[in-house]
């Protein structure tokens, strides 16, 4: 291959000379060159080693899916040489070699091909004993470029795009579609993977050249059309969301309608040694000559089965490239393309019709040196005796096309196989999806323009602009693709798939072994699973399979590739590793008090507050001690907080909670247990009646979002006269508890905290430190205590005021760990910790919170069934007989060698000087006073005794007033 003289349409800038290195050698290319075009122009005889047999390879398609010309470029693996622009100083190396391209130590594999049959992995890997050796060997042998393990994280921007009509492909039909949609008033985005517009419409002939150029000019003059070149539409997602990938970023394009003018991908002929360097698709040579001015060779042979073959021969001749012969698979009796054949013959090109390539012969450096051809009859039989040899240094293949329908199929379109065109063409189109041009089976250039205008108009109309064109464009009369451009050879090496080195016999063997549907064939043989994802191999593989099975290609059908259908750098897909974390309004106060954080739902909460000189355990014990003996304050702002208003608010709560609330007095609170329809406990909280038609209630931290959402759904379903507001984020909440809590709080508030005015389980509105507040008197940790609910904006100020009020009296802030100890001492269960997805109120010992007399509540009907059955398990309290050796949560209770339950919570209580916990046990075991055996860490048997709960203050005296006051007095 060599560089030709300049041409006005060339894409290279000869005034810019770029130096680069390839496999240790120094080379030069021009500005605008791609890596492959520069190497080809420099006459490098081969660029790569093939995947399996390490055969020498050069350019095949030069169309953004050349699977062999992948390179390691400046440390980046698998860079596509056919489309990656050359830069000065680039360091380029071949991939998949052992010791470099020329001296690749694995090149002997080509001679071992007969011992590497199809499905080799499946056949070799089934013995367990040998597996480790096989694995080591194949990990070393397979794979393409080398990933740099110390590469830094690369981020790339993502962008949202919006358009009325997205046109994929900027050839004649795509340009025309964009213009028609733009003319109707739609905002249009036109994308093409090439660096410039025009696609196959820009050629050497004036006919196509002129009209396409006029279309490009018109597109440039239309402000409503946005043009994106060097951009791959790589994936289609639901409702016209198309991933547009360019070198820098991913654009998430949302269109109202999409026109696929994505064209066709040329398919190779299959014959022995069809992969030798110098053998390429005719369209590849055409692009090389037109855009990069690289001639495919000095003696070119064309393998032809369509009119494009002759046109390209005429083009090459006009550019001074010597075409020796055209070998046409179709016989002269077919009477097709006679005029073009005559035109070629007139230029001295030998036109041999009714012949097929039988075998390519390699010369020096492994490149093609000759092509042996044989007669091919109408029935597809060859006569291998009558061989003719044509000396050459390049073989071009123009035998057929496959529709670039990947995105169309992803969009839900269906195709049918057109016998006339020997191509899959669109059959059914989903709403808003349109197809035109060669992908739609329309090949003649003027017809493509008309078809594009039709599709563009229809797409614009779908998006709400203009009236849809009713035009129907006929496909051309000439068949662009050969029925079976596949020639058998006893010595094989006739490649169907150039990515994975698959030969005809490999596919036939796979089919013979039973993998004879297109999906199974693909998975077993790996056809179409290489870097080009079958763009050059799927059609021929289907033809081979159809012949083997004696069925029509139509019967086998196309496979739909998953998005992204084209390889995309992972950095374009990677997200930002962003995790939302919620913080309460007093987060900074915790931080300044040396809080040690723990996650709770998506919140962060203080686990405990570190104090210099104290261990974690000591700090937690000291926090518990403060609450039991003076006072403590905990931030419970993470609880879900909901307000409900309306005449039927009480009725609504009666229906969603198991208890009764319609009769709750204003100014009082009541515990609430929420069940699902199957009677399982899903949440709990405290419900406070603030006014006759207004309740304020809490949910668990973890359940707040889902519980609120479900309440909204039930409200929508029942249509009761009430409305819910989620004030979780608006309001802060603290629990201020301990024998001193009343004494410390009273000076700060206008609410009379006296027992007569503010009894246990009461709720009052008033002011704290001058700030509007709701005070709930609850037994949260089993001491006299108040839950203080205030606006989030006031929270830090009130927290500081409360802390200041108690600091000299032993007040400590306490964290989640101390709260768990305190609550467990009172025997309170935690929904989701001590209950699971099957626990009903009877099992959780919470029947007291269920009012079965109500007409209806969620879960009631199931509870009626469950009540008659008796519990499957029971939640009981236990204390360890040896308080030092602690089991962990979820350790099992074993009874006579059988699992009889599990520990759900366990703590060591300094207050009680015992280790206590809750366990879910089988009912026959759950007798108070009974002994159980827990299998602890390392199988240690740990003895425990079942005891009644609460463990601490069983009659709840301390959280009621009189006793609490006595306790204060005793201090």
């Amino acid at each position, binding site marked *: 291959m060599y560089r030709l003289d300049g041409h006005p349409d060339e894409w290279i800038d000869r005034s810019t000379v770029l130096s680069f290195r390839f496999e240790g050698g120094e080379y030069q290319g021009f500005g605008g060159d791609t890596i492959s075009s520069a190497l080809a122009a420099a006459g490098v005889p081969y660029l790569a080693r093939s995947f399996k047999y390490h055969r020498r390879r050069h350019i095949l398609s030069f169309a953004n899916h050349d699977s062999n010309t992948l390179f390691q470029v400046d440390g980046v693996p698998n860079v596509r040489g056919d489309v990656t622009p050359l830069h000065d100083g680039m360091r380029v190396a071949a991939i998949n070699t052992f010791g470099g391209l020329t001296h690749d130590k694995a090149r002997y594999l080509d001679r071992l091909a007969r011992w590497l049959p199809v499905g080799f992995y499946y056949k070799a890997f089934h013995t367990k004993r040998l597996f480790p050796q096989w694995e080591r060997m194949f990990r070393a042998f397979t794979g393409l470029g080398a990933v740099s393990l110390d590469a830094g994280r690369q981020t790339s921007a993502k962008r949202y795009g919006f358009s009325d009509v997205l046109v994929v492909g900027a050839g004649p039909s795509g340009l025309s579609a964009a213009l028609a949609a733009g003319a109707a008033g739609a905002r249009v985005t036109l994308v093409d993977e090439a660096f410039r517009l025009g696609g196959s419409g820009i050629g050497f002939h004036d006919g196509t050249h002129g009209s396409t150029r006029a279309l490009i000019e018109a597109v440039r003059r239309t402000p409503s059309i946005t043009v994106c070149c060097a951009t791959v539409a790589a994936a289609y*997602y*639901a*409702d016209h*969301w198309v991933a547009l990938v360019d070198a820098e970023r991913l654009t998430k394009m*949302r269109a109202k309608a999409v026109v696929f003018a994505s064209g066709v991908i040329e398919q190779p002929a299959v014959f022995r040694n069809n992969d030798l360097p110098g053998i390429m698709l005719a369209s590849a040579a055409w692009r090389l000559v037109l855009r990069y001015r690289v001639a495919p060779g000095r003696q070119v042979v064309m393998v032809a089965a369509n009119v494009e073959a002759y046109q390209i021969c005429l083009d090459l001749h006009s550019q001074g490239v010597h075409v020796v012969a055209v070998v046409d698979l179709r016989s002269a009796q077919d009477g097709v393309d006679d005029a073009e054949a005559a035109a070629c013959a007139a230029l001295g090109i030998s036109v041999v019709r009714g012949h097929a390539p039988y075998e390519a012969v390699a010369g020096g450096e492994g490149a093609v040196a000759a092509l042996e051809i044989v007669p091919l009859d109408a029935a597809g039989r060859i006569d291998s005796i009558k061989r003719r040899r044509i000396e050459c240094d390049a073989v071009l293949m123009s035998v057929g096309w496959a529709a670039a329908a990947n995105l169309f199929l992803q969009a*839900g379109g269906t195709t049918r196989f057109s016998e*006339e065109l020997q191509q899959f*063409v*669109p*059959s*059914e*189109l*989903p*709403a*808003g999806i349109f*197809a035109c041009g060669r992908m*739609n089976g329309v090949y003649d250039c003027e017809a493509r323009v008309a078809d594009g205008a039709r599709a563009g108009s229809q797409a614009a109309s779908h998006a709400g602009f203009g009236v849809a064109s009713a035009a*129907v*464009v*006929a*496909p051309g009369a000439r068949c662009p693709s050969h029925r079976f451009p596949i020639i058998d050879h006893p010595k094989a090496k006739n490649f169907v798939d150039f990515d994975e080195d698959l030969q005809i016999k490999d596919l036939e063997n796979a089919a013979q072994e039973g993998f004879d549907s297109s999906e199974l064939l693909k998975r077993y043989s790996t056809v179409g699973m290489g870097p080009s994802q079958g763009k050059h191999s799927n059609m021929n593989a289907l033809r081979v399979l159809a012949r083997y099975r004696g069925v029509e290609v139509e019967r086998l059908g196309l496979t739909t590739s998953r998005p992204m259908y084209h390889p995309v750098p992972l950095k374009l897909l990677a997200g930002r590793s962003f995790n939302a974390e919620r913080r309460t309004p007093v987060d900074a106060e915790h931080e300044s008090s040396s809080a040690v954080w723990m996650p709770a739902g998506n919140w962060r909460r203080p686990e405990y507050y570190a104090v210099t000189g104290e261990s974690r355990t000591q700090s937690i014990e000291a926090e518990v001690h403060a609450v039991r003996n003076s006072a403590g304050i905990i931030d419970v702002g993470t609880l879900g907080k909901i307000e409900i208003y309306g005449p039927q608010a009480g009725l609504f709560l009666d229906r969603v909670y198991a208890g009764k609330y319609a009769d709750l007095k204003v100014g009082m609170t009541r515990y609430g247990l929420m069940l699902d*329809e*199957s009677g399982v406990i899903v949440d709990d909280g405290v419900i406070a009646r603030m006014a006759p038609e207004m309740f304020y209630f809490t949910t668990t931290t973890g359940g707040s979002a889902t519980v*609120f*959402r479900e309440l*909204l*759904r039930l409200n*929508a*379903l029942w*249509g009761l006269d009430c409305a819910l507001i*989620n004030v979780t984020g608006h309001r802060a909440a603290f629990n201020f508890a301990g024998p001193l809590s009343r004494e410390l709080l009273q000076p700060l508030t206008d609410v009379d905290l006296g027992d007569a005015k503010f009894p246990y389980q009461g709720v009052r509105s008033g002011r704290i430190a001058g700030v509007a507040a709701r005070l709930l008197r609850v037994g949260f940790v089993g001491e006299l205590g108040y839950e203080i609910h205030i606006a989030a904006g006031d929270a830090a100020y009130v927290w500081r005021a409360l802390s200041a009020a108690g600091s000299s009296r032993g007040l400590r802030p306490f964290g989640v760990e101390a709260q768990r100890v305190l609550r467990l001492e009172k025997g309170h269960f935690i929904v989701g910790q001590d209950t699971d997805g099957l626990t009903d109120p009877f099992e959780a010992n919470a029947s007291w919170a269920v009012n079965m007399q109500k007409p*209806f509540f969620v879960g*009631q*009907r*199931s509870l009626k*069934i469950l009540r008659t059955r008796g519990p499957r398990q029971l939640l009981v309290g236990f204390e360890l007989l040896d308080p030092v050796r602690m089991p962990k949560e979820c350790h099992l209770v074993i009874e006579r060698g059988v699992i009889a339950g599990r520990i759900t919570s366990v703590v060591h209580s300094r207050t009680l000087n015992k280790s206590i916990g809750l366990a879910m046990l089988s009912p026959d075991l759950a007798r108070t006073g009974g002994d159980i055996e827990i299998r602890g860490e390392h199988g240690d048997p740990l003895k425990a005794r079942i005891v009644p709960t609460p463990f601490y203050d069983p009659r709840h005296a301390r959280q009621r007033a009189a006793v609490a006051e006595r306790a204060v007095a005793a201090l």
Partner: protein
Amino acid sequence: MKIMVCPLNGPRPVMEFVYGGEVRVSPDPDTCSDAEWSAYVFNRSGSPGVKYEWWCHIASGYWFIALRDTARDIVVATYPVESVRGGLPAYDADAAAQAAGIRAQDRAS
């Protein structure tokens, strides 16, 4: 990503919504048998087809009813809950197909 048309908020990406299950009518808890009730509580039909479903627009907390073709992943229509409280409209299979908009490519040949 799919677009869903919320009756309150208009067309929004589907990630702004959560699915709330198929719309199913509870048997009368006072008169139904235990077997009927447990069938209602525990059994769901996973078969693809055109179904009424609960959907919620998360940001606004708005629940509505969507008629969706789960086989073809198409939202046929959406309704405010009030508009269907009297009973779900009988859906029209032709309307569902029309919403899908699948049509044959016109061909001259």
